[in-house]
């Protein structure tokens, strides 16, 4: 640069340079002020301590505890509160990078007084914002100025790339401090799984943290980065982990990994605003540029293809593994003959989809509480029972189906002892239907019969007709050949035909007039019962009572006596509850024969009138 252009710059930028100087003084001033306050604070604290020694211990705990609760409550502001810790380092670095920026801007300014430059000069004069700052704001969207690759465990700096400055000198302390803050945040927010510091605003800088399995990436960005930058940073970090897994694991090599440094240097990008990109295409040597670009593309394609294949495999495998229930991926890395996967595996986890050549596993068993695996275990437990177990999200198991009380109780116990199960709801379980109950649903107990089943003994009680109970008992003994049946309280009643025959056969003798003997009274009672039974079975049934006489006496008297005998029995039957409408009377006095006393003919006989005979409606 010649002194001519320096002079021009001095002329053009006198105001901005003065402003810059002022800014720098302000920065220093604020540092002095904070230092002064810090001194006063220290003395004040010390005095308090001198007065009361217990103050020491009593203050120490609340500080740590307070930080934790504050961080839980208001993450954003506490992270801001951490800024003063690393702030001074960054601030010093900012002034250094403004200097650097000035140098870079010289080039732009030398391009001359473009209309744009004049516009910015005018704005700068109007608003008081330094010209250089305006140029940055108007031409640069963002710039990644520092990239730190830091070991997650020890906080040791693995490699660093960045623009010169205070920060670069203190980068080891910066890395350690950042790791400590990060650990603190992670520890405090441990319950919100995996919550870590992702980004923080440090003045006009953005601090971004990209998390990786072994190392993390911290970058300081000036401007307004887009989320897409985070993706490409994540990709770069993945690539570093993949290519330099061994180097990252050996802290002896930290700071001596030029290839890693080169990767980081690639991240120090400046994203210009779109409009200016267009302006930059001058059209000069465009052809050469094309050829170079083509060659470069071919090279990149060749190298990239191989790398991408590998990366794709790795990526696919990782994605697959992450979705296998009951498997926790701890590490995945390339070994001599393919990929080596380290992880925790539940015995029920199914790894078959990812088991193929080129993938080796180093597995340790663990018990997964993943719902699908708990469900599988539930199924195994309920196998062989008639129960279904369903698992809800809150760990409640709902049982349905049938089971005996004993089976249910033991299953409940087992379920409640199972990790992942919090409660068991068995209200939907029904007691099993016994073979006996199933039999009954197909062969109902005949009417008026009570059947009770206790300890394989069937007790029957009640009255029934012979045919009904006979066929039912036959079914019982066929289905349960060994069943003991107690019929002591069962009254088997005659069925219709037998009843009719018995009724037709009944005779009530009346040795004198219409007098009924004790035997005749019994016959009437039994006849009444039979009649009632018969009418139960068929209400249309009726009878004819026929009164007879022997041949002593006049035929007229005999006719009357026969009629009276029949009426007498009818009355007795009605008194026993037989329907009057269903009783007809007839007479059969002595027709002809020797007029001698014949007790056998002094009687009333009975005959059933069947409905088919058409005597009654």
């Amino acid at each position, binding site marked *: 640069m010649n002194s001519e252009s320096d002079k021009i710059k001095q002329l053009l930028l006198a105001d901005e340079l003065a402003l810059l100087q002022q800014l720098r003084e302000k920065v220093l001033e604020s540092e002095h002020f904070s230092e002064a306050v810090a001194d006063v604070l*220290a*003395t004040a*604290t*010390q005095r308090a*301590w001198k007065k009361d020694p217990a103050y*020491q*211990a009593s*203050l*120490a*705990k609340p*500080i*740590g*505890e307070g*930080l*934790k609760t504050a961080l839980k409550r208001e993450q954003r502001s506490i992270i801001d509160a951490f800024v003063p810790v690393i702030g001074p380092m960054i601030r010093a670095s900012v002034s250094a990078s403004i200097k650097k920026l000035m140098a870079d801007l010289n080039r732009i300014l030398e391009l001359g007084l473009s209309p744009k430059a004049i516009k910015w000069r005018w704005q700068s004069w109007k608003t008081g914002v330094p010209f250089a700052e305006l140029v940055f704001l108007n031409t640069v969207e963002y710039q990644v100025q520092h990239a730190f690759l830091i*070991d*997650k*465990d*020890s*906080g*040791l*700096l693995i490699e660093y790339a960045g623009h010169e400055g205070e920060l670069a000198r*203190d980068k*080891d*302390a910066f890395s*350690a*401090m950042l790791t*400590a803050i990060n*650990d*603190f945040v*992670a*520890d405090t927010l441990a319950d919100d799984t995996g919550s870590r510091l992702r980004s923080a605003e440090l003045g006009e800088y953005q601090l971004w943290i990209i998390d990786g399995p072994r190392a993390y990436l911290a970058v300081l960005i000036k401007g307004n980065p887009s989320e897409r930058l985070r993706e490409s940073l994540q990709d770069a970090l993945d690539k570093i982990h993949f290519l330099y897994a061994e180097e990252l694991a050996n*802290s*002896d090599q*930290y*700071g*001596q990994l030029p290839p890693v440094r080169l990767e980081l240097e690639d991240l120090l990008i400046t994203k210009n605003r779109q409009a200016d990109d267009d302006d930059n295409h001058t059209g000069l040597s465009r052809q050469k540029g094309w050829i170079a670009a083509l060659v470069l593309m071919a090279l990149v394609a060749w190298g990239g293809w191989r790398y991408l294949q590998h990366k794709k495999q790795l990526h696919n495998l990782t994605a697959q593994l992450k979705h296998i229930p009951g498997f926790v991926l701890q590490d995945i890395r390339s070994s001599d003959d393919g990929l080596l996967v380290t992880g925790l595996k539940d015995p029920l986890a199914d790894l078959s989809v990812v088991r193929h050549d080129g993938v080796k596993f180093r597995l340790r068993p663990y018990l997964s509480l993943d719902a699908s695996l708990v469900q599988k275990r539930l199924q195994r437990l309920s196998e062989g029972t008639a129960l279904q177990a369903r698992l809800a999200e809150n760990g409640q198991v709902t049982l349905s189906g049938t089971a005996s009380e004993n089976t249910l109780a033991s299953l409940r116990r087992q379920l409640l002892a199972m990790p992942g199960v919090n409660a068991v709801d068995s209200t939907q379980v029904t007691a099993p239907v016994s073979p006996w109950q199933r039999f009954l649903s197909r062969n109902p107990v005949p009417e008026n019969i009570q059947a009770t089943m206790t300890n394989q003994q069937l007790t029957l009680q009640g009255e029934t007709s012979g045919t009904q109970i006979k066929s039912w008992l036959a079914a019982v003994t066929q289905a349960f050949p060994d069943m003991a049946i107690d019929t002591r309280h069962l009254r088997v009643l005659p069925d219709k035909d037998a009843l009719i025959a018995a009724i037709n056969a009944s005779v009530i003798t009346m040795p004198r007039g219409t007098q009924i003997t004790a035997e005749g009274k019994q016959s009437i009672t039994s006849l009444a019962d039979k009649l009632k039974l018969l009418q139960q079975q068929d209400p249309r049934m009726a009878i004819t009572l026929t009164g007879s006489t022997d041949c002593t006496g006049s035929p007229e008297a005999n006719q009357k006596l026969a009629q009276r005998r029949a009426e007498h029995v009818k009355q007795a039957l009605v008194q026993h509850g037989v329907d009057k409408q269903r009783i007809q009377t007839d007479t059969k006095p002595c027709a002809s024969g020797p007029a001698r006393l014949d007790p056998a003919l002094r009687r009333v006989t009975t005959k059933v009138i069947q409905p088919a005979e058409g005597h009654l409606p």
Partner: protein
Amino acid sequence: MSAPVLTRKICLLGRLAVGKTSLVRRFVENVFDERYQTTVGVSIHTKTLNINAQTIKLIIWDIAGFEQVAHYQQYLRGSHGVLWVADGTEPASWQKLLAIHQNHQSIHAVPGVCLINKHDLLDQWRIRNEDIAHLQKVFGFVLFSSAKTGENVEQGFTELAKRLLKDQ
């Protein structure tokens, strides 16, 4: 070409106010301050040493005293060495060290050096010979130090650095 620089992380562990921060400041900046400013969480310093033609850069994690919520454990992760600090005028300070050492099996694999600090306060000195013998057995190497006079401060850190190199 000289051997490359090794970076190593070491942690200072000890009760509140035993002088951890004072030892680090004496070692790194060669200053001492009577005033007490408790450390919040952790404070980081670095110092480069030369030991037998090997350059080693120590990243020193000055962790707050145990009393300040038990979160010192997370700061220990990845540490290559531990400087155990007790206060020779305060028996509880070495008893606490022994208890912490016993409760953390994982720490036994890491090289350590133990400093009994504030040796300038001889009129209040309370550690007995049998205590020292016991500490020696547990921590391997014990020194009397004073951040105030500078006694054995450099020696303590250097001894730990040597052990880090040997440990490789």
